[in-house]
């Protein structure tokens, strides 16, 4: 009886110890798992914060670029037209009635042209307006403006039926387009700039090619003067896209951005009704 009771006591103690070890094990696993999960969450939050900062930066740069374009447009185009109207009207003040009538007609046409130019500028004023139109249309409008200025000859080719890529992706892609266009204008001494937008079922491709003087990509990256190119690569990776930069001295530069479409990509309907 005594032996039985001792055995019984020992069994209870053993089971209790097993339960306690099991409990402690569960607690340890939970602590370790939670610690790892915390690290993962913090890393994710950090990435999200970086992403938001980059988006904000891109947004500010788009605004800055747009303001520069507008300022140039006002100065070079509208300002000139209005100055010509002023001179025209001034010259016609003491002229014969027929000459005066002709000056007035000319001035009316010039003012109408200035009004049209102002309307075009107002289209590019708002970043939200650009995003509302969709990437393809926003690029087309920007191309029209540059073509009008005669600084560079831009050609936009759209393949496939345009669809939305999500506001953030479109913002980044538009900024990449602006940056490479800026490079072509400022440094490449290019004459032509081709923009290909390929809306395929599984991926979206943006190809930006100029016929400027080109450069060695490797050398540019090594020299440290390729900050703009690195920026393009970094921004593309932010939206999950891959950027390829191809250039050799004398052969222009081609930048290709490939965005694989996943279920997470915000493909929010077609923009085709807004194009054209």
């Amino acid at each position: 009886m005594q032996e039985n009771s001792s055995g019984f006591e020992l069994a209870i103690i053993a089971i209790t110890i097993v339960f306690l070890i099991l409990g402690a094990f569960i607690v340890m696993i939970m602590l370790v798992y939670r610690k790892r999960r915390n690290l993962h969450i913090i890393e994710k939050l950090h990435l999200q914060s970086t992403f938001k900062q980059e988006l904000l930066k891109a947004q500010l740069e788009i605004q800055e670029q747009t303001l520069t374009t507008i300022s140039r447009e006002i100065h070079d185009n509208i300002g000139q037209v209005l100055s010509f109207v002023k001179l025209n009207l001034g010259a016609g003040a003491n002229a014969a009635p027929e000459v005066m009538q002709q000056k007035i007609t000319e001035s009316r046409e010039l003012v109408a042209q200035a009004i049209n130019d102002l309307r075009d500028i107002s289209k590019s004023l708002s970043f939200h307006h650009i995003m509302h139109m969709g990437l393809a249309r926003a690029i087309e409008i920007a191309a029209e403006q540059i073509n009008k200025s005669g600084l560079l000859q831009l050609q936009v080719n759209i393949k496939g039926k345009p669809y939305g890529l999500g506001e953030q992706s479109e913002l980044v892609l538009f900024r990449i387009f602006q940056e490479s266009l800026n490079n072509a204008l400022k440094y490449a001494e290019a004459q032509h700039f081709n923009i290909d937008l390929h809306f395929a079922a599984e991926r979206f491709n943006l190809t930006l090619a100029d016929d400027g003087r080109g450069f060695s990509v490797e050398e540019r990256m090594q020299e440290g003067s390729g900050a703009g190119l690195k920026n393009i690569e970094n921004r593309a990776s932010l939206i999950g896209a891959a950027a390829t930069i191809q250039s050799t001295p004398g052969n222009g530069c081609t930048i290709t951005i490939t965005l694989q479409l996943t279920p997470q990509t915000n493909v929010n309907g077609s923009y085709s009704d807004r194009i054209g």
Partner: protein
Amino acid sequence: MHLNLFNYAEMLALVVSIIYFNRIRNTPFAILLPYMIMIVCVETIGKYLASKGLDIQNLYVFNVSSVIGYIVFYYLFYKSLKTPIFRKIVFYSMPMYILLATINMALIQGFDRFHIYTMIIGSLFLITFIFFYFYEAFGSMEPVYLVKEPMFWIAIGLFLFYLGDFTYNVTVLYFIENRMFKEGMRLFRLINNNLIIFEYVCFSIAIITCRKIRRGSNLQSLPLL
């Protein structure tokens, strides 16, 4: 009157809850102060009566205080859990447990015997609620620093105590029915009394980790009622 180590652990938790009452005053953990006062009073008075050789039948005091204890812990889990279904389960388990314990003590086991059945049910409820808490702590999409969470320490203290005590609670009837009081008491001292020390040390840590205003701990930001 000879006090055991677990008595000191209970007193420690009481002293800590008094010292840090300002921290826990506006949180659900404020309930730990009256709870600790009750526990220390029940244990100390029981010890005193035993030391004086006064053979007063006082098992009903333990029975009632343990039911209150379960309700206090359920309340803490109710306030800490966020998932609506878990909260609902804990909320309804409180009156249900009181009802079951009352029926058991009044009609089945009696007030003058250990209410083993409802202690086992209470422990099972509690372990389930602890797993609810662990589940939420596991799945939270926000960074949660468990060792800084008072409820984590409460949950750990209760989890290991009731897990360790479960086998004894299940077998205690066997000892009583076979009149193995000596063996039963020996096991009780070995298992229960040692686990109590761990439980109340955890409670003390929980109170100390409580802050007046802490972000990231939803429990502490919740109103008392």
